[in-house]
């Protein structure tokens, strides 16, 4: 099992969700995040006091998948989250040792 973490632009969520769903993924968890990277931030200005904001709004998706889903899922995200513009985000894949569905106590692939 893998845990995929995807950082994407907020307005891409619906599309990415749909693509993941089409790739057989049935669940995910989303968190609001702010990202720092190559994408240029903006400046805020309050009564002449300037603040450089280099953290930009992103969404972080965490998607647990079975080993055989991982490629399709990564593919789904990387395709739909791509706007071709800087700041589109990253996908990170980590190995996951154990998964539990709290309601049923199922573990492993069944829990996902």
């Amino acid at each position, binding site marked *: 099992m893998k845990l995929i973490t995807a950082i994407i632009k907020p*307005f891409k969520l*619906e599309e990415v969700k749909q693509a993941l769903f089409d790739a057989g993924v049935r669940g995910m968890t989303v968190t609001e995040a702010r990202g720092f990277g190559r994408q240029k931030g*903006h*400046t*805020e*200005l*309050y009564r002449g006091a300037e603040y450089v*904001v280099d953290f930009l709004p992103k969404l972080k998706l965490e998607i647990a998948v079975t080993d055989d889903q991982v490629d399709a899922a990564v593919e789904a995200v990387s395709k739909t989250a791509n706007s071709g513009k800087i700041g589109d985000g990253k996908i990170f894949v980590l190995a996951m040792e154990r998964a539990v569905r709290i309601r049923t106590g199922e573990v492993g692939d069944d829990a996902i």
Partner: protein
Amino acid sequence: MKKLPVILWGLMLPAAAQAQELNTGDTAWILTSTALVLFMTIPGLSLFYAGLVRAKNVLSVLMQCFTITCLASIVWLIYGYSLAFSDGGAVNAWIGGLDKAWLAGIGRDTLSGTLPETVFVMFQLTFAIITPALIVGGFAERIKYSSMLLFSLLWLTLVYFPVCHWVWGGGWLGEAGLLDFAGGTVVHITAGVAALVAALVLKERTGFPATPMPPHNLTLTVTGAGMLWVGWFGFNAGSAVASNGDAGMAMLVTHISAAAASLTWAALEWVRHGKPSVLGIVTGMVAGLGTITPASGFVGPLGALIIGVSAGTLCFIATNMIKRTFKIDDSLDVFPVHGVGGALGTILCGVFVAESWGGAGYADGMTMGGQLGVQFMGVAAVLVWTAVATWVALKIVKMLVGLRVDEDEETEGLDINQYDEKGYNL
């Protein structure tokens, strides 16, 4: 019969005013009403609207309403009041003159009826402020600041000042006997139609209607709604330009219509969607208030009840049609609420002004049919003129400075993009 305010404002002011004495009670109420109507725009309307947009555009709406407040005030001083309320000589049917430009000749002692003319100037100014501010709902979340600024200036000049003169300033519609107590045509039809035209010219927000664009903070909207209701007492009861039974009745019918339309809207939602909603009930309120506005000095409580229920019903239907059937992105539903409501109220006023309905009665020699004819004519004329002039104004703006931010800027949000600010840092 008392077709009081129309006559008073339209004709007798310049001439007869000198004969009257200052009344401190009348003055107190109109000073207060002025505060109430300004309160409707800032913060009232601006909060109502601000809550409805997405968080990234919250400041843009507040900024637009606030800027319009300032801009309209300066223009009013320079030529707006004069165009609307001074004598236009040969073209007086169509537009006022420039005699009172820069408020020339208006001093501490100048009276207008039983009020200082300064108070009348201020009271009327608050109407010239809120009308263009209402239009903001039509082009929200996508217009450039500079375009909004230029457009508002042109629109006040091409639409608001002339129409205000037609109806209240001695122009042809007032002369024809149009009943519009507090702005069904002058304020609500003009704003509603302008918003619709703006929505059509600017086109929809990127993503509309597929992408959900839910209100970002309904507590702001409901707060603004309460302020609008309270402030509307100044709008309508203040339009009696006196502290008397006309003002009292105007306040009463305004209130009844608002309550009736609110409950009607909520009930329709309940029937149709299974649940009422707070956004629904406050939208019904605005519909009820906008619709009673032209009639508020003429009808009685029962007329108000019927007007309120009609407003809730018709504006509910119109809102759904514009958005879902025609897929027009009049983003905050200005036309179906204000435009439709303003027209509806102007017409129903022709019915419920009848004494048999508890109204103030028709002018001598006027019949219901005759009055309805005048009312329809007023609605049609204002509607057509507004549509054409708004379209022209938008084309001019487009030519000079463009209209919309580009798509990336729209995605980023107008707050950061146009103002280098962010609404919330919680």
